[in-house]
């Protein structure tokens, strides 16, 4: 009878005759999946996540009006000149901020990388270096946990309105991020080449330049370019608090509900991100 056979097939598939053939990971997987959902539910409630509000006509209409004004983007010569100047200023801000961030991030990440520890070549890391590395990690944590917007608000009060405060804000937050991720990248790669050099008596910096850096150069480069892209985006946000550049331009256009100008600025952002993407791909191709 077909029904009985299918039933037996079903039971044999789900409860194998041999208990050892049951995947022991199943219960744990189900447990974690359920607890993930259980955690997510109160978060949705807390964050007032009600996507259906989006579709209410009263909310939808002004938004659609604003977006509708995007077309056509403003493209007269006067605005384009302004746009070009502010774009250049934004790129300069992001680049200068990232360069300053590198000045801080590179030494800090080298100080915190465990792979470059001489004492941990054999056994546990010595007390002093271990405390120093942990301290540097905490410093990086402090640097990156303060949002660049907050730094910018601080610096706008110190150096006044303009790109300088944006540059300094990006430099501080990004040094924390870059330092942490550089250290993570350097530690996650294959350490054999580096540890062999140190085991044969090389200095730590020599081992870095001859072992660790060539091993991880491609990933470090592509991450840095990606961060440059992020710096361009965050310079837009910083413009809203008076740090200059495309962000400030966008702020004034938004306040005047000038959708055409906002659209042009957004197109420039897309072009910049595309440029960063191409640059990263080209650099990685060069390095591999």
């Amino acid at each position, binding site marked *: 009878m077909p029904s009985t056979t299918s039933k037996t097939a079903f039971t044999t598939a789900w409860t194998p005759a041999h208990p050892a053939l049951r995947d022991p990971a199943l219960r744990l997987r189900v447990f974690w999946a359920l607890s993930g959902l259980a955690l997510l539910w109160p978060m949705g409630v807390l964050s007032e996540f009600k996507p259906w509000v989006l579709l209410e006509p009263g909310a939808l209409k002004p938004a659609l009006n604003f977006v509708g004004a995007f077309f056509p983007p403003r493209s007269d010569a006067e605005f384009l000149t302004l746009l070009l100047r502010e774009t250049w200023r934004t790129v300069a801000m992001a680049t200068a901020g990232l360069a300053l961030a590198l000045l801080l991030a590179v030494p800090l990440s080298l100080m915190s990388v465990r792979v470059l520890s001489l004492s941990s*070549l054999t056994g546990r890391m010595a007390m002093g270096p271990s405390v120093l590395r942990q301290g540097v990690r905490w410093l990086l944590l402090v640097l990156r946990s303060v949002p660049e917007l907050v730094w910018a608000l601080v610096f706008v009060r110190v150096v006044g309105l303009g790109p300088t405060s944006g540059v300094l804000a990006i430099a501080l937050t990004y040094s924390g991020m870059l330092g942490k991720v550089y250290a993570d990248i350097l530690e996650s790669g294959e350490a054999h*080449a580096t*540890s062999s050099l140190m085991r044969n008596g090389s200095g730590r910096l*020599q081992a870095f330049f001859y072992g660790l850096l*060539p091993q991880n150069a*491609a990933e470090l480069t592509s991450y840095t370019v990606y961060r440059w892209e992020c710096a361009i985006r965050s310079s837009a946000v910083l413009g809203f608090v008076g740090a200059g550049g495309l962000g400030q331009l966008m702020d004034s256009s938004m306040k005047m509900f000038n959708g055409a100008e906002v659209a042009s600025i957004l197109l420039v952002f897309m072009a910049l991100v595309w440029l960063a993407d191409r640059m990263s791909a080209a650099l990685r191709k060069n390095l591999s």
Partner: protein
Amino acid sequence: MRIFYEGYNPVLLMMVVLNAMTGNHPSAKPGAAPAVRAVSLSVAVGEQLAIIGPSGAGKTTLLHLIGCALKPTGGTLELDGQDPWQQTRRALQGMRGALFLAPQVPPLPPRQRVVTAVLAGRLPHESLWTSLRSLFYPQDIARAHRALAGFDVDEKLFDRVDRLSGGERQRVGLARALVSQASLLLVDEPLSALDPTRSQHAINTLTRAARERGATLIATLHHVDMALAYFPRIVGLRDGEVAFDLPAAQVTPAHLRALYAQRLHELTGPAGIETDTLPGAPAPAVMHCR
């Protein structure tokens, strides 16, 4: 005890003495039997010694213990009368600079060029500034070329390491040992990826180079006939203990059969590459998307 100082790197003569030295393979579980047990050995300056034995006998661990890459759990190591583990960290690093430990898997970053990878053998004897300049433009191309020519890979001088075959990489790793100024060369399975002709050539180059500069040479070898042909002194290691320590001429087939008992197939042909390089802590998962 004669030590000359060149910078802070003591130039040692490298007499090696092991007193009942015991040590664990670094990936050994706690409580496991030590891989090297109470080994006593004395190697004179300029002597050449081959360590043979079945796989798992503790050859690699012993080599790493001598090379200050592993701290012994018992007994002592003396390099020119000094216990490296009694020194300050800086002095220990200086002593490490006077020896060269070539692991079985050549430690070459894939994206590095061969010339740079070879010249990295000179790092302990160079200032940071010189080594940085050497990254921009290799400072001693002729020396790297000479070392590579000794192993027939000189035509790969400016190629990248990841373009090389396994055997070529191993020979590049040996060339790195040749350019180092170390007075003690510790070579782990230098022939594991080489064919017989290349093996003979490589071991010839290695022993001759060590003789020319008066360096002490200790190699672990799977190829028993190579060890007997090229090394004057043979140490047979079995289960972490010295089974015999004899001049090559006095090693009889009976010795070898006893050493390789139950593993006679390894006596006739070398076993495959053991991947018993020193593993550190397991690397954390790579985050590709940040």
